[in-house]
């Protein structure tokens, strides 16, 4: 459920008392309700679901996750090369 897409906040404005923003999705700009992210600022990334920003994306965590994937890969590759060595042996 809950198709959510990451985009970058480009502009913040007010509409009838609601905090709104223009969010860029790789070239597509859409008006999005920011009421649930009172602290988000221009330049931040957010996940948008049915026109609402529901969470701020944390770059640090994102990088850590990716680094983890890389390390798994390395571990795996090590293992594979170990296995290959063993086979070769």
């Amino acid at each position: 459920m809950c198709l959510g897409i990451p985009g970058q906040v480009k502009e913040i404005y007010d509409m009838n008392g609601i905090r709104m923003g223009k969010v860029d999705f790789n070239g597509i700009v859409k008006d999005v309700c920011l009421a649930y992210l009172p602290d988000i600022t221009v330049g931040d990334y957010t996940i948008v679901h049915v026109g609402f920003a529901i969470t701020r994306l944390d770059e640090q965590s994102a990088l850590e996750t990716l680094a983890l994937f890389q390390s798994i890969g390395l571990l795996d590759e090590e293992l594979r090369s170990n296995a290959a060595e063993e086979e070769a042996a």
Partner: protein
Amino acid sequence: MSEGLNFEGWSCPLPLRDHPNIVMGHGGGGKLSAELVEHLFLPAFADSGAVDMGDAALIAVGGAHLAFSTDSFVVRPLFFPGGNIGELAVNGTINDIAMRGAQPLVLSAGFILEEGLPLDQLAAIAHSMGVAARRAGVTLVAGDTKVVDRGHGDGVYINTSGFGIVPEGIDIGPTRAQPGDAIIVSGTIGDHGIAILSVREGLEFGATVESDTAPLNGLVADLLDETRNIHVLRDPTRGGVASALNEIARASQVGIVIDERNLPVQDAVRAACELLGMDPLYVANEGKLIAIAPASDAERLLARMRAHPLGRQAAIIGRVTADHPGLVAARTGIGGTRIVDMMVGEQLPRIC
């Protein structure tokens, strides 16, 4: 009461019975559209001939072969980024004719105008049609105008019909795909559909995507100049590349495999599809073609496509197989496989 008013005699064949009325999906270019043709129109027209599955019908006239096609255009809004309904209507029928390898010759234009349409809008549309026809080198020779009561139309509907001459020795059609053929697409997919969605009421986003509407007869002429050995040409309009490939797989009784990683998709189109939960494979194009030809000729054709302004982003996206006839499969980004089925009705924005 006249015989025309007696509906009792007619019985609606399954599987249409579950829809006693026309729904939007019957015009969506997917399964519902196909069923309407197969179960309703073809039986009715049967003894008078057959509605051709391809983009255009082939007619023998004296020694020549003509490709004859018709399409009605009901796009909203009338004006959209990259074009308008008039340009679309001219290019659309030109392309259907070109998909038989024919050089389009003449077009007719039938207008259904809604009372109240501003004349300056109609003039702008007509102007675009003239420009588009000249661009493609075809002549608008016959016309018709009807006006319907306000509230019974939608500004302008346009039908274009027309024909062109199939050069001697050319045999291109949806039944001719063969195992081993390569599948080439002439450029980025989904541009037109997303350009239209981008301005539709309730689904507006910054309009950076333009419709790709363009006449493909010049590109086709170049390809035929490169080699006459092309098996299928197809403009993937309504229903997108997925529906076009499904129709070809069924008509030729072959399997088709595409590699999703090779599909050319503009960044903004991809983003819009992500946002709406849509698949670019199902989004309409109005200036792209799919060419299916022996793999041995694929690179030559690709190079020739890329040399043409309308084919710069052409790519080989898949191949024809003897396996799983009638089915289209896709190799996914991470190396998995999925079936690429025909759409049922229209593609709808998803929330989840």
